[in-house]
């Protein structure tokens, strides 16, 4: 029963944190977050705002009409989902030239993001932003999600999504505090080195199952402190530091007592 209470407690935590983050960065609008469905039925006004924002922030790399340049790919047909993912996780506008565009605190608020998404979506048909229902972890089956995650994602993201290394300084980030919407979009659009998992590959229901599985991981481990869920290496390190450390400290202490 205690575990159940703890679970409820935990489930709320990321949402609260997310809301707080949005509050800080996006101001009051964050609270009244526009439902993603709005993006599909974007008004021409939105598209206009989006275009202006795009020209100011993105055109240097992606070209004035998002047709792409030598530096960055064309965004025609990448869809609203790709823009929402890239901008709301702070990856775009890209800043540093590294092996991989870094996620950072988002620079656009919810409304600006939606406008940008609407603009890019208007350039060519692409995957849309998922609805709240599509990404609701409570509606998914974590057991099926785990099986899918194990075969499709764990080789890059670790068995429970704690993250892992790829070649040449690239890495698959930990999924511990990515929002359900972003998880869905990542699968749908395959950012950078990540493959695209389209709806034929992993159906929308399957995607929700994966979200449910990842959500379950946030409840913590039944066994105690999770030690980062990194597996045997971190366990070995702790065995030396805590285990052997305490034993030797104890031995020195007992030795000092006797003589």
């Amino acid at each position, binding site marked *: 029963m205690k575990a159940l209470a703890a679970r409820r407690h935990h489930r709320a935590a990321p949402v609260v944190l997310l809301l707080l983050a949005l509050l800080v960065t996006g101001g009051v609008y964050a609270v009244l977050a526009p439902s993603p469905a709005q993006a599909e039925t974007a008004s021409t006004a939105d598209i206009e705002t989006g275009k202006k924002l795009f020209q100011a922030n993105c055109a240097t790399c992606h070209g004035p009409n998002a047709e792409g340049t030598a530096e960055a790919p064309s965004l025609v047909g990448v869809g609203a989902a790709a823009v929402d993912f890239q901008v709301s996780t702070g990856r775009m506008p890209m800043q540093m030239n590294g092996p991989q565009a870094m996620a950072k605190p988002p620079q656009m608020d919810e409304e600006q993001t939606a406008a940008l998404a609407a603009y890019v979506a208007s350039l060519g048909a692409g995957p849309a932003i998922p609805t709240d229902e599509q990404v609701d972890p409570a509606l998914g089956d974590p057991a099926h999600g785990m099986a899918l995650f194990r075969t499709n994602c764990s080789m890059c993201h*670790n068995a429970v999504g704690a993250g892992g290394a790829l070649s040449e300084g690239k890495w698959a980030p930990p999924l511990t505090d990515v929002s359900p919407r972003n998880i869905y979009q990542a699968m749908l659009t395959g950012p950078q080195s990540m493959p695209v998992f389209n709806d034929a590959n992993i159906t929308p229901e399957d995607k929700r199952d994966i979200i449910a599985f990842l959500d379950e991981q946030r409840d913590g481990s039944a*066994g105690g402190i999770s030690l980062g869920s990194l597996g045997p*290496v971190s366990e070995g390190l702790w065995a030396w530091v805590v*285990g052997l450390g305490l034993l030797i400290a104890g031995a020195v202490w*007992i*030795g000092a007592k006797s003589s």
Partner: protein
Amino acid sequence: MSTTTTDTKRPAAAAPKTAAGKAADYLDQRTSVGVAVKEFARKIFPDHWSFMLGEFALYSFVVLLISGVFLALFFQPSMALVYYEGENPASMHGELMSIAFASTLDLSFEVRGGLLMRQIHHWAALVFMASIVTHMMRVFFTGAFRKPRELNWLVGMLLMILGLLAGFSGYSLPDDVLSGNGLRITDGVVKSIPIIGSYMSYFIFGGEFPGEHIIARLFTVHILLVPALILALIGLHLFLMVLHKHTQFPGGGRTDKNVVGYPLFPVYAAKMGGNFFLTFGVLALMGATMSINNVWNYGPYDPSPVGAGAQPDWYMLFLEGSLRLMPGQTEYVIAGYTLSLNVLIPAVIIPGLLFTFLFVYPFVEAKVTGDTREHHVLDRPRNVPVRTGLGVAFLTAFIILAVAGSNDLVATHFQMSLNAITWALRILFFVGPVIAFWITKRICLGLQRKDRELVLHGHESGRIVRFANGEYIEVHTPLDDQERWLRVNYDAYKPLEIAPATDARGVKRKGYKADKRWQRLSKFFFEDRVEPVTPSELAAAHSHGEHDSLGSVHEQHDALPAGASSTEQER
């Protein structure tokens, strides 16, 4: 009954009054165990915290036995498939899995205290191996493996290898993705052995990997074969330890002929009891608060997925690292047969070399010193620079391999490129031990010179004295007897002298070449050395000039009494 006892030879006054006393008397009359107890209780043990490391291994093993028996009551070593019925964890409900995995989940979520026991068992396994390794380091760096203890070093080596085997077989039991990955690698390694490899693999797995038998077989190995062997060897190990009596660190009054320390009863026994509870407590605390091997995170074994961060337990990491570092191009097909040097070298030859070094080292050292005396006083690591250097070089290689085994985590946690790390470690594996050896040897020699300096001239006191003629000197306070003893009583071996290549009549001597080789090795060991201060040097240092009239004490470093509160015993 007590009448019968009093009626025998002993006087009535000696008859025990308490219940415990009566019981002891009962036993003693039938077994004469009292003699052995008396003998054993008076046994003297020298004292140092590092002498406890082996004890920690012993107590962790006891914890492993107790928690392991608990696990064995519930674990079912079968690879038959079932759908998991349990509700917890939700991510496993309704999954198809082996009975072994299902019973591990059952142990973790249904059996009362099961998860605690699993975690205690696994933490105990990690700490067991960690204490064995640190215990070995203590023995190696202090030269405790020298005559007459070479055999016990071999017993210890076997214990360490059996520990690896125990850990590996246990790790493979739950049949989760990680344990299956480990078995998959084992299968690959076995198959890489030329000619017999594939037959051996079929033999071990009872057919093509993974087959249906391996878990049941490993179960027998894990709970019967290996623990029984370990238990027997621990018995032998401790028997030899009591027979030889424990070594002691150098110090005043401690010689190869005596043992200075505390009697087993009561002082040492109390300490041992304390350490026993300490080990139990620490392991229970870890098992209760820190999660380990959450198999439900990895899911039931299936040969296709390999998660990022899939690694073996730490004591096997060096093997994993060795495999990760080896370039993959070294696989050759010769006349239709594949020779997988890319697996054979890192997984068989490298560990083979590492273990061989440890197995033969005591014998090699005995040979290059030409020393056949018994040693009961330990070496200070600085006094045997090449041994200490080799030990540090060995550890460096081991650690580099372990880091290579965790290269993906190093990459993500220190934001480095995986490829760059792998290349750096490939080079370091060859260069690192050499550098480590050289630096360590230099440090040891430097410390020895510092010791000489101290013995000859004493501590700097910071007191400056001006003489009538205007000369300034700093007063050095001479070392006290214990300090001096520690610094002058060691062997500085010289390289071996060998008989000439030809005998008196000019005939070539047999075995000269081998002797020559040993001599070369001996030179490597003992060419650079710092001789201990001799009594005459000390006397000379103290009588040169008039300065030593400032209160230095002339004294030969001969036998000193042992420390005040401890006891001395003949060997």
